[in-house]
């Protein structure tokens, strides 16, 4: 458990986000079903799921944009509709959205007034997201990466204690993704709780302390990120493959060796790799590849739900 989360629990603080049985129907379609999750103060919580799993609907309910069909939610101990419900909370939902005819700075001035924060804060957040030198340009002339950073700047206007980010790296090139993740980590290091949705396993593993996995509208797991995708298998590519399979089966048992295209997938410990390699070489089998493979998002969904995510 992360140190800050433990401290928050010991200190008896209310959770940053707490939902109980949150459900949203659109006609006969169930977008979110009986979702119960908790985000503790100070942690970076990853909300992981494939596209269409219900992540954005859940985040829109948290912000009061969409009313739940049933269930309850609290943000920093406050119910939706109460005065100051979103005080101290910043959000970037479904990508950045601004007025194309206004400059980046004027866009932020508009939102600063709606947020009730002073003009100096606009300059501060522009510095934070490294947009100060392009703040006078029209928003419509911004690159996607700059738009995304302006979205984060708007989310930071209120100096939030809770930041809700929906797929913040969506559509960005690798450099833009790195910038965005660095920014999120910097904000988190300053004590801000972050709830981040993503369909990228690697992103969640890089940034988050804890993760909630959502699949077809239901939360299927909530666990520390270290436990997500733990385990793995050895992949061996060797020639002749039949001789390699026979040799490895005799070492680890035939039920732990599976063909995977031209390779073999072996349920064994990572430390067994050297021994298997030595055995194969001694048996005159030529080994061209031997690597450790961690499970990908699809395999994790399969492990957690017993359902192949690709099939849906």
């Amino acid at each position, binding site marked *: 458990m992360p140190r800050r989360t433990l401290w928050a629990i010991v200190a008896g603080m209310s959770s940053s986000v707490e939902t109980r049985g949150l459900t949203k129907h659109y006609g006969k379609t169930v977008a979110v079903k009986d979702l119960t999750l908790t985000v503790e103060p100070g942690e970076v919580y990853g909300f992981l799921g494939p596209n269409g799993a219900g992540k954005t609907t859940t985040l829109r309910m948290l*912000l009061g944009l969409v009313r739940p069909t049933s269930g309850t939610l609290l943000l920093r101990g406050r119910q939706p509709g109460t005065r100051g419900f979103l005080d101290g909370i910043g959000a970037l939902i479904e990508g950045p959205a601004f007025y194309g005819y206004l400059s980046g700075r004027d866009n932020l*001035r508009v939102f600063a007034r*709606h947020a009730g924060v002073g003009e100096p804060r606009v300059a501060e957040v522009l510095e934070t997201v490294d947009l100060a030198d392009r703040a006078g340009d029209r928003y419509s002339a911004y690159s996607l990466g700059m738009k995304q950073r302006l979205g984060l700047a708007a989310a930071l206007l209120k100096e939030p204690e809770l930041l809700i980010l929906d797929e913040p790296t969506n559509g960005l090139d690798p450099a833009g993704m790195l910038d965005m993740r660095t920014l999120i980590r910097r904000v988190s290091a300053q004590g801000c709780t972050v709830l981040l949705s993503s369909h990228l396993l690697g992103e969640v593993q890089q940034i988050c302390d804890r993760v909630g996995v959502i699949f077809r509208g239901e939360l299927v797991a909530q666990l520390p990120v270290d436990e997500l995708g733990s385990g793995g298998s050895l992949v061996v590519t060797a020639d002749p493959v039949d001789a390699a399979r026979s040799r490895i089966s005799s070492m680890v048992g035939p039920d732990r060796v599976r063909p995977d295209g031209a390779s073999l997938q072996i349920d064994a410990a990572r430390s067994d790799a050297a021994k298997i390699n030595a055995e194969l070489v001694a048996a005159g089998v030529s080994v061209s590849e031997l690597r450790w493979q961690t499970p990908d998002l699809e395999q994790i969904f399969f492990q957690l739900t017993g359902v192949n995510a690709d099939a849906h």
Partner: protein
Amino acid sequence: MLTNVRAELIKTFRRPAVWLLFGIACLLDITFTYLIPYAGLSGNVDGPTSNRGLASMLPPSFIGNSLGGMPIFVGALALIFGVLVIGTEYASTTWKTVLAQGPSRAAVYGAKLGASAIGALILTASLFAVSAASSAVVATLKDQPMHWPGFSDLATGFGAGWLIATMWTTLGVALAVALRGLALPIGLGLVWMLVVQNLLAGIAAPLIDWIAQMQKWLPGPNAGSLALSLGANPDSPGVGALVSSGRATLMLAAYLVAFAVVGGWLLIRRDIRE
């Protein structure tokens, strides 16, 4: 609430399209109430307003000239302005960015109504200024005396113009919320303003009695009645004496309130879907 209004004022009046709309309204006013009638004085020009005569262009008539376009053409532009004020949030998916900053939907809606009323005020003031300037130019060119209307008439006429323009902008606001967009509410609003209203008044009402009676309850004919009572030329589209000025004023105020309430109710009650 005041900070929300300030936010909406920046957003609304930094938008070039808004000033384009107001500019077109002024251009229409000058063209149909001054340029064409002035050209018609020579007797060589034949147009829709070319036979109005010199008196219609002089300072005593400028209030009516400012109001003549309100029932139809200026009204249509005011409606588009109202749609822009709030429909943009749906079209550019910015509702989520606005509401994530924490203001209540009621506060933002109230601020938008405030911005649209201020826009209607600027539109009305522009039309009055352009008409007054045009009247002064015509009076100077034709060597006529500058007899301006009294303050009371000016205030009444200006107030009526603002009421009509605000009523149309609020209809635009309500349509944009109801249809959650920009293009469809503008399209449907213009079909109502420019086609349906004219068909009802020009073709259906003279033939069918209940439609003639219904006309007295619609916003356009009430705007036309109020404009006529304050000096608008009866030849102007949509201008006609269907109801008294007092009743027209009450009806327009009632429509304004009804449009505002319907728009607010829908915005607060429904999910934000962009």
